[in-house]
């Protein structure tokens, strides 16, 4: 793990260049350009609003600006997760000419997918910041939790990307499995709804390590109070374990990449 980190540190220019390339390619020759990064969270948020309207019709509880703001914040994080995982899973197979021809730490490929998606998130963030005040959100000290929550989110995402990119190199059906799971994962993760809707069944939902992070973003940014610390600790542990396991798994298989891709 420490070796991996050292290797990456000495190849940081390469990580930067590969990420830069991904960003260049994604925005070159596309009509919408940077709008792409904004579009995805907007669509997710719209879907969330529709779901909430339906829910409020049934329950009779009116939807508030804070509800919509919360969906927006979670949508941004979710869009990051989905895009990173989608690109990350195929990052090694998509770069097979580099994998077989040039030697450098392969971890750079899944990580650059994560960084590229992080860049997309940074593009979309100002839009959310412009909208939040209208949703009645005020600055609060609890927002200082946001960077920590993002670190957990990025760590968890990176762990999965690393794991799946290596797995997909050996078994090409991994990418289809990931696609299918990602399509439906939004129903198992409280992006469009809140975990508290489930009352006493909430802990089951919280077992998904993404849930505490998304709920945490909702609490700290929109509601202005602390996240659920125990569950955040659980997510952090899960992310750390996944990242560590992913790196070990990845580096164990790395010598076989060039001949198996």
């Amino acid at each position: 793990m420490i070796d991996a980190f050292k290797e990456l540190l000495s190849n940081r220019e390469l990580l930067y260049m590969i990420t830069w390339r991904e960003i260049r390619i994604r925005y070159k020759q596309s009509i919408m350009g940077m709008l792409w990064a904004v579009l995805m969270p907007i669509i997710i948020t719209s879907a969330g609003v529709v779901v909430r309207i339906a829910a409020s019709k049934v329950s009779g509880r009116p939807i508030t600006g804070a509800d919509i703001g919360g969906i927006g914040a979670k949508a941004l994080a979710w869009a990051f997760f989905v895009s990173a995982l989608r690109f990350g899973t195929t990052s090694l197979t998509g770069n097979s000419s580099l994998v077989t021809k040039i030697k450098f730490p392969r971890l750079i490929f899944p990580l650059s997918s994560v960084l590229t998606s992080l860049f997309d998130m940074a593009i979309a963030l100002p839009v959310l910041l412009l909208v939040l005040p209208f949703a009645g959100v005020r600055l609060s000290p609890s927002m200082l939790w946001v960077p920590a929550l993002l670190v957990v989110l990025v760590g968890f995402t990176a762990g999965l990307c690393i794991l799946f990119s290596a797995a997909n190199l050996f078994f090409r059906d991994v990418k289809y499995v990931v696609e299918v799971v990602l399509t439906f994962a939004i129903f198992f993760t409280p992006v469009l709804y809140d975990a508290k809707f489930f009352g006493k069944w909430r802990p089951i939902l919280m077992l998904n390590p993404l849930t505490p992070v998304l709920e945490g973003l909702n609490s700290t940014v929109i509601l202005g109070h602390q996240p659920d610390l125990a569950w955040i600790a659980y997510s952090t542990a899960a992310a750390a374990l996944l990242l560590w396991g992913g790196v070990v798994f990845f580096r164990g298989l790395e010598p076989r990449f060039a001949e198996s891709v």
Partner: protein
Amino acid sequence: MTDSALRMNHVFKRFRRGEQHDSLRDLIPSLIKRAVRKDRERSLAPQEFWVLNDISLDIKKGETVGIIGHNGAGKSTMLKHLSGLMVPTRGSIEVKGRLSALIEVGAGFHPDLTGRENVFLNGVILGMTRAEVKRKFDEIVDFAGLEEFIDTPVKRYSSGMFARLGFSVAAHLEPDILVIDEVLSVGDFAFQRKGIEKMRQIAKSGATVIFVSHNLQAVAEFCQRGILLERGRVIEDGPTDQVIRRYLDTAMSHGERTARGPVRIVSTSIAGADGEIGKFQGGSRARISVTLEASEAAERVAVVIQIFNADFYDVFHTSSERLGHPPLSLAAGQKAECDFDVDLHLGAGTYYVGTYLYRYDAEREYDHVFPATSFVMTADRGAHGVVNLYPVVARFATLPAFRPNALPASPNREFKASMPNGAHRSMLDSRIKVALEPKEQ
């Protein structure tokens, strides 16, 4: 050894023929098999073979080494091990210093990015820092000769331009050890010369260069030491000339053939008009005979012959088709013979004949043997080089003082030189006769 740059100690690598399990469904049975089988280090399953078989090498700092061998001998696999892309099944590899491997030019170039962007990207991928690339940028672009197109996306480049830019980035790496696979065969002739010149400079600066190529001439010119691989083993290691000689011998003994078509070359021979074999005097007439045999019916077969000199320059090639003789269709089991009469206006040295069977309208190669045979031209008077132009000194005298008003009407008049009769005649006669007739079994 303290001054060795690179060492391979009893390196083995196992490969597997055919498909590997690529989907999760196939994983579980193979895992069980693997668990049951013992001693995986040494044993071979039926589908497996050693692509590298006990290779030990010690390459010293500053050496230039050429690796040659037939297709599938393990050359590229060996380079991939040297560059760390693959890990041996058994044995170890030690590398001292910064190693740059150039397995393919322009690997990592992205078609949508401009030449400039790709230079930076590729430079960093190959191991330079961005500052380094920036410093060498002008030099790189200048070497590739692409100043005007540097801000054009590389997808608009011709394949030659693409390759030139790729090579140029790699040529400016300044590594301690440079590993190059067949990349000099890119670009036009002038660029290839430039490439070899650049490699020579890199070698001169003290770097170790390991070079894999089918271009024996480039290997001969550039490398001090040669290594000949065959079926994953080192079968010759020594001065380049000696290794190339051995390579040619092995090539002749089993004939390097490419195609396994319905028709194959049975033999190729060259004999002089006066019965001489193997050794010829300049200007003498010889007949190159090619015998072919069809195992199945073969349509429209033409015979191509090609003559190379010892540096593997293509000195001459022709074919029955080019000489206006119609191609021949053979029935299964039928044999044919094709004789070319040639006048050997060649300079002194060793020459190699390659033979091809080709179908021009379908652009299909039926068979190819190189070298099919060889012969030696003996030295002739004062003529040196690849060809003999039968020179004579037409005039060699001091000129009268310059007088502008007294220029001769036609400056060419002086060159009505006399040629020796024989040479003149045989040059005019240097046409080639083809006789291509089916032989009855």
